[in-house]
């Protein structure tokens, strides 16, 4: 699965969860750019991603990620693994 395909799946979920954010959904995005993307919002994002892609994350591996791109890379690695 390509990263582009992953972003295409994530973007609607991301925009539903964080509906105040209107900028681009890309690899550079961090919690600093999106006010609603706090720790609880992050759990909702991660669990939504788990359901969409049929993967499971250990909470440790998705805490303190530098940006959205790192999360997408993790999804890609799990899908190819």
């Amino acid at each position, binding site marked *: 699965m390509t990263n582009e395909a992953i972003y295409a799946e994530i973007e609607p979920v991301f925009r539903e969860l964080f509906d105040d954010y209107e900028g681009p959904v890309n690899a550079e995005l961090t919690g600093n750019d999106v006010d*609603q993307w*706090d720790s*609880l919002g992050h759990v909702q994002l991660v669990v939504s991603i*788990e359901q969409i892609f049929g993967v499971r994350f250990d909470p440790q591996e998705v805490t303190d990620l530098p940006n959205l791109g790192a999360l997408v890379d993790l999804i890609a690695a799990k899908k190819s693994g």
Partner: protein
Amino acid sequence: MNKLEAYPTLSRLYDLQLEVFPAHEDFLKRRFENSSDEHIGEVAQLAEIVERIAGYNLRVIAEDYAWLTDRMLEEEYHFRRTGKYRLSTFEEAERTVYADPVFMQKYMNGVLLSHLWWGNHSRVIVYFRRQFLPLIREGGSHLEVGPGHGLLLYLAAQSQAGSVTGWDVSETSLKNTRNALQAMGVEKPIALEAHNIVNAPSQKFDSLTFSEVLEHLEEPLEALKILRSLLNEGGKIFVHAPVNSPAPDHIYLFEDPEAIIDMVEQAGFKIEKTECFPGMDAPIDRARKLKLTISTIVVGTAI
């Protein structure tokens, strides 16, 4: 932080919290940047009380708050994945939380600071003081079941109530409440007694507080019916319980505020006022749509 500069105690607690838990900076910044000056002033008053309760243990309490947020995130993952709380029986909560004194102490310490850092928690305290206490009878008898950190009992003792009583099933919890009240410097005598409401003495009160207890019970409706029987007709009740709020010892899931309001009504109360305070101060529509935590308050009259 600039907005807190006028309030030295709150400012000091804020700095200490970030010293022991730097990863919380974004959260706390947003929490206060998005709050009105009036609300920050109210939180600053709470900070004075919290600091007195904490005494010399402030740093430990700040560390325990950081520990609590980790426990809450674990529960949040479970809740979002399954749609259920991890525990469903009192026996499980007793075994894994209440019977573990180290866990309980950290938990209660963390919850104490949550009254400053979580907007919904501080707004409940402010609502209680401003909206509920004026309704209670001058010189009347007031009871709190499950007083925990003692903040609401302390405020009730400052009100026009004639007598103030706290009941809890746990001697350990009562001891904690007693210590907190002592630290807060309450002048009015407060009776703290170990009672399970199921075998409650046949006393009657004029007003009653039941805050953050319903979600810990297997049969919350039955508990509310007992509370109704403890109130004189016309007596006032303040019920506060959270919706969609996973925590290590929450066992009863309310999925929306109406589930709590309807239950209070069903137990024999006329609903006088309700209020919803979503977690993270989210707009209520967003909180409902995403099933976020909503601290729900119901004020009722015994009929």
